[in-house]
């Protein structure tokens, strides 16, 4: 193979006339990927990718675990810009008792994307009212 390619190199002009089909294929796939990626990024550019984060949190699951209760939540960023260090705070309040607060921090919530996490409580969230919300974020 090596020997053959060396002899081929002596006649570079020949290769110009016959471009291998594989080269066409590889270049065409590359071009398609370029157009696709530029398209998606460009589309984001003009579809509100620069609106600051709006984060809503919904509780997905509450389960008794060893030592208390676990609340799984899903934080969704409705806006285009990514949020960093999103602090999620959950409160359980029951009549006549002190409220219990738990916190979690999500490193990133990208635009139009969701991230999941969990909070632990010692008290049963069903015993009172449970509120989980995003308290704040930093821009990345």
């Amino acid at each position: 193979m090596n020997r053959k390619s060396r002899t081929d190199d002596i006649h570079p002009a020949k290769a110009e006339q016959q471009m291998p089909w594989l080269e066409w294929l590889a270049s065409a796939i590359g071009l398609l990927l370029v157009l696709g990626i530029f398209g998606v990024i460009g589309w984001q550019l003009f579809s509100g990718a620069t609106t600051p984060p709006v984060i809503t949190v919904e509780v997905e699951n509450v389960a008794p675990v060893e030592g208390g209760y676990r609340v799984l939540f899903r934080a969704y960023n409705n806006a285009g810009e990514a949020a960093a260090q999103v602090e999620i705070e959950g409160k359980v309040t029951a009549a006549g008792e002190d409220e219990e607060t738990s916190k979690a921090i999500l490193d990133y919530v990208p635009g139009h994307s969701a991230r999941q996490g969990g909070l632990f409580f010692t008290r049963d969230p069903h015993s009172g009212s449970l509120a989980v919300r995003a308290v704040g974020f930093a821009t990345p």
Partner: protein
Amino acid sequence: MNEVTVTSERYAIGLARAFGGAIIFGLPLLMTMEMWSLGFSMGRGRLLLLMGFTLAVLVGLSYFSGFEKTFSLKEDAMDAFAAFGVGVITSAVLLVVLAVITFDMSWGDIVGRVALQSVPASIGAMLGRKQLGDEQDMDAEEERKREAGYGGELFLMLAGALFLAFNMAPTEEMILIAFQMTPWHALALGVLSLGLLHVFVYSIGFSGQENRPEGGTFLSTFLHFTLAGYGVALLVSLYVLWSFGRTDGVSVAEIANMLVVLGFPASLGAATARLVV
């Protein structure tokens, strides 16, 4: 007919080396956390510009040393697209395997991560032939570098600086180092960068070393190549830092510190561009 299959076969080997290059040169950044978050958080306009810049650099690199010998601008462009495709496919597959990309992510998120990661991977694909292949058309390559003159020299420095600077720039450490350095440290690092750039290019005989221009004194060589090279390295550093949003709202003095920090790997990249490219 037989001729065609032979050349396709050779192209396939070049393509395989390109995949090898994309994996090896792209791996450090594929496993860098900041690259994942920058993929979705950096400005879309800046990302788009960076991809365009990368494609232009790929066309130039294809001229000097692509994964196959080229004869025209059309072929250089085709090779640049092919290298870009190899970079994108490699990045996408590896990011999925490393669980950086999961399919419950939004499209913008996924495409952003793959797009940013494809910058080092596609340059790696282009360099793959040179680093992993046999040395069959070294002569043609050397001839091109000689023909290209001063402009070509600066382009190679730019490509080398971009490649090495891009490997460091996403990390938090660049900023941290800039913050903890005093002006004396920054000056020392700047002088060290210039010194190493000059020595690497003209004195210690790496392969592809530049011969001092005929009749050139130390001073004229220094001004012409070393200072120009450091200038290219600093500009590339500024561009990369700006792309990643590291310069937004930062004071000029602090930006200067960051430039010197990132300018160190960038100038080493510029100095050794002839080795790698």
